[in-house]
């Protein structure tokens, strides 16, 4: 279907056009043009069909919005639900029970485990080991693939317990949850998570030893940071160059813009600079808040510095976060006491609501205006991948000259592997990557 790749090189010219990037979530393509060793164009084209979510939520109640925005992404629905629910609660001045806060963090841990295990084992690891898919990889590395699937199942079980199902959970409501959870229900997952933590620790060792291409990017990293915990639902927006911003104020520093080659709106700093979100940014900017077990695992790899600079090392960052999420989930389960009420009662009303959380792929920002009836009048939803798009393009441009000497297959693999390093979720950004290589005139 996509065997249209062609590549010719002469005196540092290269045109790569990947028209169907696989093992990413969604539909996109990659276009790269190099002339005389100089990169003229590096574009991540997103042709996932537009679904117009910001228009679809107009006229809806906050609880309806929580159900609707989940459908932006089947891989990270919790990220959309968490960002929306916190935005509404902050905007409407609703206090939540500390036990509800703990349950939401537990739910997010489940999604991080499910999403990271999917990416590490099923989408990314085949690149490093030279297979077209994890299913093919399983012929030679069955134990590793089974361990990855067990880890992924543990994340899904956590989301299923709190949310009812692994994809598009149903229990998150403004003020809390649609039902309460007994201690016995929550602690029933202890064994599953203990096993998951063991696998996650092995995963760190496995991916830290992978042969990784040399590459140093020089760009801005952005993440949430919280004084007492690894960032998920709360914190401040910080960057590698000293930004420190309330998470409701995302728009004062960043802005979305439309480019002709993408159905996703790209985000950049207001000064035009790209920035990178995600596991590597979080480890670099908020690594001092990792769970001690995860911090120790990271230290053992000796790769904290490389994670900050080499995107191919993001698989290590993801593995460390798998440890963090499993270890934190176990701590939350141990300490859990049910909330007094499943949800705080609240009254609909007008407000401006904004919030940011850390999705598995990085910072996600929502803003809503609610009218006098408490219905959405205006919405802005900024997923991580559309924010990363400009940084991915900049990194591709910086990396491209390094593959000029390689064969077509190797060049293509290296470039696809680089794009997969960012775990682009194009369904979120709007969707699919496709590499075609063509000759320059």
């Amino acid at each position, binding site marked *: 279907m996509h065997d249209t790749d062609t590549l010719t090189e002469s005196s540092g010219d290269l045109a790569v056009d990947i028209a169907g990037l696989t093992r990413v979530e969604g539909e996109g393509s990659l276009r790269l043009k190099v002339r005389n060793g100089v990169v003229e164009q590096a574009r991540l084209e997103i042709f996932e069909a537009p679904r117009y979510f910001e228009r679809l939520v107009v006229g809806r109640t906050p609880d309806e919005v929580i159900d609707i925005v989940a459908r932006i992404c089947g891989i990270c629905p919790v990220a959309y639900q968490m960002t929306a629910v916190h935005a509404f609660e902050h905007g409407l001045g609703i206090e939540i029970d500390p036990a509800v806060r703990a349950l939401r963090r537990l739910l997010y841990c489940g999604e991080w485990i499910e999403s990271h295990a*999917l990416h590490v084992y099923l989408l990314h690891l085949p690149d490093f080991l030279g297979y077209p898919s994890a299913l093919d990889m399983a012929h030679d590395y069955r134990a590793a693939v089974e361990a990855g699937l067990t880890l992924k199942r543990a994340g899904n079980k956590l989301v299923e317990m709190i949310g009812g199902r692994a994809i598009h959970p149903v229990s998150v409501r403004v003020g809390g949850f649609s039902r309460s959870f007994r201690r016995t229900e929550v602690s029933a997952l202890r064994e599953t998570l203990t096993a998951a933590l063991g696998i996650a620790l092995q995963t760190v060792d496995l991916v830290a030893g992978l042969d990784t291409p040399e590459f140093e990017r020089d760009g801005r990293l952005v993440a949430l940071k919280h004084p007492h915990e690894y960032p998920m639902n709360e914190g401040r927006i910080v960057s590698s160059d000293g930004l420190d911003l309330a998470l409701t104020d995302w728009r004062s520093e960043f802005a979305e813009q439309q480019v002709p080659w993408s159905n996703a709106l790209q985000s950049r700093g207001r000064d035009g600079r790209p920035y990178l979100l995600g596991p590597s940014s979080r480890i670099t900017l908020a690594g001092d808040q990792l769970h001690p077990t995860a911090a120790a695992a990271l230290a053992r790899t000796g790769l904290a510095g490389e994670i900050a600079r080499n995107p191919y090392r993001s698989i290590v960052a993801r593995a460390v976060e798998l440890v963090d999420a499993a270890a934190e989930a176990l701590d939350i389960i141990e300490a859990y006491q049910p909330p007094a009420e499943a949800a705080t009662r609240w009254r609909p009303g007008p407000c401006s609501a904004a919030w940011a959380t850390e999705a598995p792929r990085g910072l996600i920002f929502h803003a809503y205006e609610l009218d006098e009836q408490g219905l959405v009048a205006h919405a802005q939803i900024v997923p991580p991948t559309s924010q990363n798009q400009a940084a991915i393009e900049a990194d591709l441009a910086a990396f491209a000259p390094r593959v000029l000497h390689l064969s077509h297959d190797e060049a293509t693999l290296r470039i696809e592997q680089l794009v997969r390093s960012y775990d682009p979720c194009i369904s979120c950004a709007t969707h699919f990557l496709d590499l075609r290589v063509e000759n320059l005139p």
Partner: protein
Amino acid sequence: METQAPITPGRRGPRAGTPQRPRIGIVKFASCDGCQLTLLDLEDELLAIAARVDLVEFAEATSHRSAGPFDVLFVEGSISTPEQAEDIARLRAVSHRLVTIGACATAGGIQAIRNWFDHEEVRAVVYPQPGYVDSLAQARPVADFVAVDAELRGCPISPAQLREFLVALVTGRRPQLPDEAVCLECKRRGVVCVAVAQGIPCLGPVTRTGCGALCPAYGRGCYGCFGPRESANTASLAKWLSDDRSASDVGRLFAGFTAWSPPFRAMIDAHGGPPGQVIPVKETNDA
């Protein structure tokens, strides 16, 4: 309803592999990837399934690609752009059986809410330069474009139903996919009726089961992920719901992830359209 220019449905494609080892493809259109992810969420069975079928096209999971032919092609997502309308016709012609998976493919999904809105207005709200973005005036189910052999409902589909479908496929029997109301599942689970006991609006009486009566079990009303069951009496439920709420709030309940399915659509139309209808419906044929 108004119809767009019909697209010639492709003829059924030939058999491709053997019945014991069918060639399977999974493709997507406008959707969230959640239904195809459900296959990867069958963690305990995934490798066993992969050993019994040839998974020749599944871009989310493998770099091996195939343009067909397929014994079974699973299709996720609604048809929302002119290019997708062409693609689905081409795919139908190379697929012996075509199976739609999920609310987007079977009913249009949440994005079909825009079918009630003015297309240009919708585009302009989301994109500063709508001209860069290509979409059809309506997001519609796959069956509006080509013949469909089977469907798995849900938003997302049920992992248990997907497993049942795949097992039936490789063992050569008919899949058991019940068409009964969520209410029956509630009774079997011993869940107290949230509508009767708590007055929570619930689409359970008119919605096909498959989720396991998930929402009532989690203390809220069913919101129709699996769409209407056969001969659902939506008018009767709407009348009952009208006792406690305004017409627009009755319409709102049906305006979810399977809103464009005819029985739910009729209720939305009868109650003034879906929420957020800033500009009234325009009768258009301008796809």
